[in-house]
């Protein structure tokens, strides 16, 4: 399902990327076509195209003329590298912002993380 909080094309790109990371779409396999995704989500094909292009630009999908979009070799490794690089920005920074507004010191945050890892 799509939500309201982020641009729709970004959600399409993320959902395809999730599928590639999970192995649902292995290297060399096709992903659903733009028209299928548009019809399935009931959204404009131009929006889907924009989302797919995000992954083409990232080297994760490639267009095979007349056939459709396919997962590239090494797509999973590229996505993992991108997401690891963004992990601090997307998850750690917001965590620390929230901790600061609650008056939790970084040491306390460390302790809470350790506790979650090994209760």
């Amino acid at each position: 399902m799509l939500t309201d909080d982020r641009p729709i094309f970004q959600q399409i790109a993320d959902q395809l990327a999730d599928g590639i990371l999970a192995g649902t779409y292995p290297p060399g396999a096709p992903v659903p076509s733009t028209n299928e995704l548009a019809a399935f989500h009931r959204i404009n094909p131009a929006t889907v195209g924009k989302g797919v292009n995000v992954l083409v630009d990232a080297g994760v999908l490639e267009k095979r003329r007349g056939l459709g979009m396919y997962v590239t070799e090494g797509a999973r490794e590229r996505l993992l590298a991108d997401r690891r690089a963004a992990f601090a920005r997307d998850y750690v920074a917001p965590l620390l912002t929230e901790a600061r507004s609650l008056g939790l010191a970084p040491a306390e945050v460390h302790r809470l993380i350790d506790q979650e890892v090994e209760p």
Partner: protein
Amino acid sequence: MTASAIRLAGVTRRFGRTTALDDVSAEVPAGIVCGLLGRNGAGKTTLMSILAGHDRPSEGTVEILGRDPFEQRAVMSSISFIRDNQRYPEDFKLRHVLRVAPRFHEGWDPALAAELVDAFRLPSRTTVKKMSRGQQSGLGIVIGLASRAPLTVFDEPYLGLDATARRIFADRLLATRMDESDRRTIVLSTHLIDEMEQLLDHVVILDGGRLVRSGATEEVTAGAWSLSGPAEAVLRLAAGRTPLSTHRVGGLLSLVFDGETPEGLAAEARTTGAQLSPVGLQDLVAAFGDRTSAPSREEAAA
């Protein structure tokens, strides 16, 4: 570069002392779905009548698929205009309408018509006059989509449609949009903006007879932003900018602004408990419609 299906230049339409359309200039590319949005009385139906060649502007020029729709019979037959209150003769039933419709549209698709009649569960024994609002809307959609007209114009196609029927329409509209063989252009007016936003390639927004926005949907919504939160913080952040619309309840204030989001303002807003956020199409259309009646613009700008 894609060709334009619709080209309007300085289109004005007066009815006596009323100006229904005031100097509207816009272009709509071919092969897409275009939403015509705005409040009641904004001029949407007047504009659609002009697009369909049922009416002509007092001033300005209209080109549909490269020609004046009012002058050219050839253009008329390539346009399907579905009004929200289409009248048929007293005793007309479904089969009469389906018999007449192909005469006006060369590309009439009987198989698609039959499929849609089924999907919308249109009754065959009831006269059109006695059909429910939703059934009449369904019939309009059957005619519009099965016409395969290069330009199809729907005036509020959703009136009275139940949730299932609205989905059927959305699905068929997308199927039409994705059909590479005929590249039809669809223009539709609607107030169900949230529901339609993701289906629209392009939007034309009218207010009080004037064009306020025309462009690709995402470009139009990217050209607006909102600030909301504690009134004091919001007013400080707004600092002299004039909002399109103002919504205030007690100590909470929300303002919608036109234009690019100012750099760095989002971070500044967060530190004061206010929020800077993008504006959805529905909020933007509502904000444009609110401009003339906004009571507290000066207060907000102060």
